[in-house]
């Protein structure tokens, strides 16, 4: 059942939301939140999902955990197809996959004590000795067991996030999806929480899916990275490979935005234009309106598939980057200078 070592498999997963237009709803528009996403998460690893706000990362995570129902595609957990299971059938599975939420202020019910919040999983699944376990969990995440009777508003953001981690750990899950768990925290606290997560992964043999918009955070914790844009995975590969030689132009733009300590080095690429609306994504390659390597007649006609371009690195691009950092010409075009609008010539070899 799980011989191939994959804990989670997403197969051409698609999620579209209906948007009603006007009072009489003449023709429904759809938000293409997640489009044809195929990912695997191996046991014991940390998969990072990176992208701008609104690119579909949180939706993908929720599809993975069946908090949302997919429009198309399959989700497999531990070898088992869970795409169409009912909520009741999913309940026992909820013990094995959990989530840490982004906002430490709204993810804890302000009317419940810490003990009630962290102990809720035990009560729901009918397990006894909740209080003892809760206090052990509080110690594990670095809080004092005396905090059992306190309310969330008495804690700082970092401490609340630890409470969220304790809640996620309660039932010994195999998979924990971390939806931007450190985005709302100060940089110094971020480091503490990331350290905590790393320690827990070792101690409890956890698999993480770590979502963030911040590449510098992802770098510290992810083994493999998936880069998403407008609901699609544009690049997927080992952490090191992606940082050292990104293949997709969008990944390059993201990387260039990461602040670097050294003064020399690459210029920051500012992409021209805005992210298109997910209600009307551009045809074929969704990145082509802003892409410095756009080839007219090809990129706007044929959608690129996610292909393996280097060992353990795949990108969805017809004209992936040949070298990193990018050439000055490419940077200028990315920032909106007149594009070469290179036509696609049949038979031209584009470097892989």
């Amino acid at each position: 059942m799980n011989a191939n070592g994959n804990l989670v498999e997403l197969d051409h997963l698609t999620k579209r939301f209906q948007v009603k237009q006007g009072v009489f709803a003449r023709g429904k528009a759809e938000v293409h939140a997640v489009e044809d996403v195929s990912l695997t998460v191996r046991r014991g690893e940390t998969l990072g999902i990176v992208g701008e706000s609104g690119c579909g990362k949180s939706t993908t995570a929720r599809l993975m955990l069946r908090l949302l129902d997919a429009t198309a595609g399959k989700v497999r957990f531990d070898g088992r197809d869970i795409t169409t299971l009912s909520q009741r059938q999913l309940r026992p599975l909820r013990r094995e996959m959990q989530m840490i939420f982004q906002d430490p202020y709204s993810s804890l019910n302000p009317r419940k004590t810490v003990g009630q919040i962290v102990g809720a999983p035990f009560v729901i699944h009918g397990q006894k000795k909740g209080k003892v376990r809760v206090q052990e969990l509080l110690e594990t995440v670095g809080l004092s067991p005396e905090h059992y009777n306190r309310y969330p508003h008495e804690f700082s953001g970092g401490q609340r996030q630890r409470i969220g981690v304790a809640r996620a750990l309660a039932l010994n899950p195999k998979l924990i999806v971390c939806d931007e768990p450190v985005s709302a925290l100060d940089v110094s606290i971020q480091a503490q929480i990331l350290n905590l997560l790393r320690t827990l992964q070792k101690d409890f043999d956890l698999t993480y899916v770590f979502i963030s918009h911040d590449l510098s955070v992802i770098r510290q914790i992810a083994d493999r990275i998936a880069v998403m844009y407008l609901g699609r995975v544009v690049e997927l590969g080992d952490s090191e490979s992606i940082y050292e030689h990104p293949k997709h132009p969008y990944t390059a733009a993201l990387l260039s935005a990461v602040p670097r300590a050294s003064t020399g080095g690459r210029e920051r690429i500012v992409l021209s234009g805005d992210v298109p609306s997910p209600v009307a994504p551009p045809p074929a390659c969704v990145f082509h309106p802003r892409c410095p390597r756009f080839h007219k007649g090809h990129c706007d006609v044929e959608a690129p598939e996610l292909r393996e371009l280097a060992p353990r690195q795949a990108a969805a691009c017809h004209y992936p980057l040949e070298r990193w950092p990018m050439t000055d010409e490419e940077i200028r075009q990315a920032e909106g200078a007149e594009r070469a609008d290179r036509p696609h010539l049949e038979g031209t070899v584009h470097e892989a």
Partner: protein
Amino acid sequence: MEGTGVVGAQGGAFAGPTSGGAVAWRRFRRDRVAVSALLGLALIVLACFAGEPLLAAILGHGPDEPFVTAVNPVTHESVSFWTHVSTGDGRTLFVLGGDGPLGRDELLRLLAGGRVSLELALVATVLALFVGVVFGTAAGYFGGAVDAVISRLTQLFMSFPLLLLVIALGQTAAQRFANVTLHGLFQQGVLALAVVIGLFSWFYPARVTRALVVSLREQEFVEAARMVGARDRRIIRRELLPHLTGPLIAWGTLVAAGVIVLEASLSVLNFGVRLGTASWGTLLAQAWGTLLNYNPNELGGGFGAAPSALQKAAPSVALFLTVLCLALVGDGIRSALDPRSDRR
């Protein structure tokens, strides 16, 4: 503080319970207007529920006992406040308060009337809140068709003139249940009227509950509860209802105030509590006349006394004070629950 070392909790200087309710109570205590209104309310309730039976026991007569000799049949004048009156069988009794057309003890009637009005308000408010919260929670949490049906229902009823509906229902359906008194706990017709009024007072709690539930339902802690595997029923009970208890009390006082006034209006119109039973509304009707029979002197069969100024004023003052206290307490609770408001 490195890595995973133990981290202490903030707010160490503040001893004492810090639950939402405790904090709100502390804030409420500091609000002098609200506290005095609460005391006033307690006083009124005490006087009506405990004071009246006590007084009746001391004086030896109830609020409904007529003293024919207390009214001069020729001059239609009644005895004044605090008088000895001799009855037919040779007893002499103190009579507190002036006399109504039938020569009864008006102070006792005022207090007994307060009891009827307050009981009615309590039953109607509890019913209204219960129905309102159930509908509002269902509409807010489940959304979709449930929400559509309940919201349309609410709007439909809210758009009708309330008084007409209550009168219509009161005259037809309530008559059938007028004899339900729960072993004498309520006067005749009071429970039926309370139910009718309650059934038309749930709209405001329903709308406010729905709005609150809709805003709470999108919070991450609800999603977290679902993530852990909680069923809808548990989410509603454990995650959402605790947020409602405080606002419920605040809305309850306002609904109660409205119900008291509504009952008084109905009784003055002669569509509420039966005139024989004392309630603040019927006392007003006795003193001022009802819609159908304006001349108050006719009410007692024509041989009663003209209502004195005290009789005319007393139920109004009682109503005014009760409603004022309820409104102030409700306001005070709302301010206490809202951490952003600051009333000095």
